[in-house]
């Protein structure tokens, strides 16, 4: 066989080999601590019980928190007050707090609300402030106790978790790291982690946009030392064990957040992912949507807002159970003792729903 013929045969073989590799599934490069999941060992349907409220005050009830005989529902878009206090479990309305406005005692927005040691903390991303409120002597109102102004280098704090009496954890929206530890005076103590994306180009050249796309909701359980972060876009759950310093990333079928960069911002494409997460003493619960932005835009806002799924993982991130709901919800509060989940449904005039599980 002539030399030319040999080379031609080799080229054809190489061609087939290249075709094979180019046709194969696009492989993303992830670290060893990144694990993919696709199924849950159990799947159950849960039927919601609507809690009838005697007042119509919500526009977009996004978060719900319960502590003893008190429940707080946070409204992301209310015209007057962002927070509403109820007696629990009957949800008798008590009062509202977090007045919307520009004055020093008012707030421009409320990203999240947390209850710790009978005190309520709220986060205003537009004022860059954390506010602590205390209960009145009659226990039916909340009053501002303290305001913590966050350092200017803490960019756009869109969520927070309470680490201990003197420290908060806030996602780092600059993209330089993943999380930021902040003290009671609003000063950044340290930063930790990196965005576990396989998008090398974005990691090198568009970190702020990547951080926006990887915008995550947090929860921390001090008993287990587990901090969970779930992405609003895509389907990624991160578990930081702050006691043994391990970090596990779980990526679902919808993969990591998708976005495109415009004017330096990360504009969401792909799907709506998670909208809330709670770490209990035994498991991690997360509300998952899975609706594509393409479909949301096509329907021009007519699709129900929220997720129909609650994913349950072990504290190490192994899938445990998938709950399929009969309501579209955004925020949850899980009580494992009574095996109930309280949830918020922004699509309904009666937005508080109770699910029983187990």
């Amino acid at each position, binding site marked *: 066989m002539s030399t030319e013929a040999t080379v031609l045969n080799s080229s054809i073989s*190489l061609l087939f080999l290249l075709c094979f590799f180019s046709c194969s599934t696009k492989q993303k490069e992830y670290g060893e601590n990144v694990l993919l999941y696709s199924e849950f060992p159990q799947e159950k349907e849960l039927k919601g019980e609507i809690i009838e409220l005697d007042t119509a005050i919500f526009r977009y009830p996004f978060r719900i928190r319960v502590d003893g005989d008190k429940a707080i529902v946070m409204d992301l878009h209310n015209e007057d007050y962002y927070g509403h206090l109820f007696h629990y479990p009957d949800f008798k309305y008590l009062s509202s707090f977090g007045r919307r406005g520009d004055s020093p005692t008012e707030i421009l927005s409320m990203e999240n609300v947390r209850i710790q040691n009978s005190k309520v903390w709220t986060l205003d991303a537009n004022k860059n402030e954390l506010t602590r409120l205390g209960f009145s002597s009659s226990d039916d109102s909340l009053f501002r106790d303290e305001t913590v102004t966050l350092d200017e280098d803490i960019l*756009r704090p869109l969520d927070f978790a309470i680490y201990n009496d003197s420290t908060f954890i806030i996602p780092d929206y600059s993209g330089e790291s993943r999380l930021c530890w902040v003290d009671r005076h609003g000063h950044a103590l340290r930063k930790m982690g990196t965005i576990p994306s396989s998008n090398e180009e974005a990691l090198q050249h568009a970190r702020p946009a990547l951080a926006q796309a990887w915008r995550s909701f947090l929860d921390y359980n001090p008993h287990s030392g587990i901090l969970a972060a779930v992405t609003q876009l895509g389907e990624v759950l991160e578990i930081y064990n702050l006691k043994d310093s391990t970090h596990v990333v779980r990526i679902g079928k919808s993969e990591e957040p998708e976005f*495109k960069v*415009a004017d330096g911002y990360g504009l969401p494409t792909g799907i709506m992912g998670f909208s809330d997460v709670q770490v209990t003493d035994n498991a991690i619960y997360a509300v998952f949507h899975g609706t594509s932005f393409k479909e*949301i*835009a096509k329907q*021009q806002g007519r699709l129900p807002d929220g997720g129909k799924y609650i994913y349950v993982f072990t504290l190490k991130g192994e899938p445990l159970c998938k709950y399929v709901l009969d309501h579209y919800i955004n925020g949850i509060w899980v009580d494992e003792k009574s095996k109930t989940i309280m949830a918020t449904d922004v699509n309904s005039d009666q937005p508080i729903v109770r699910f029983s599980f187990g």
Partner: protein
Amino acid sequence: MRKLVVFVFLCIAVIFSFKEAFFKKDNVQNSFMLCNIEALAADNESSGRWNCHFTGSVDCPISSVKVKYVYGGYSLE
């Protein structure tokens, strides 16, 4: 020999073109332009290059309010 080199070059070019086409993401902007050309309603924010629509929980980059979705806008230029 020259023909062989040209052949190999063309094969590589075809493979890369195939790969690019196979993995190319949807052009979201074009789809949104077609579906939403009349959707510049009262409750939206616009930078001229992209729009934030309706009430939701997604952070709108230009107005810092929460919206249902953000997409690349349609330029009339």
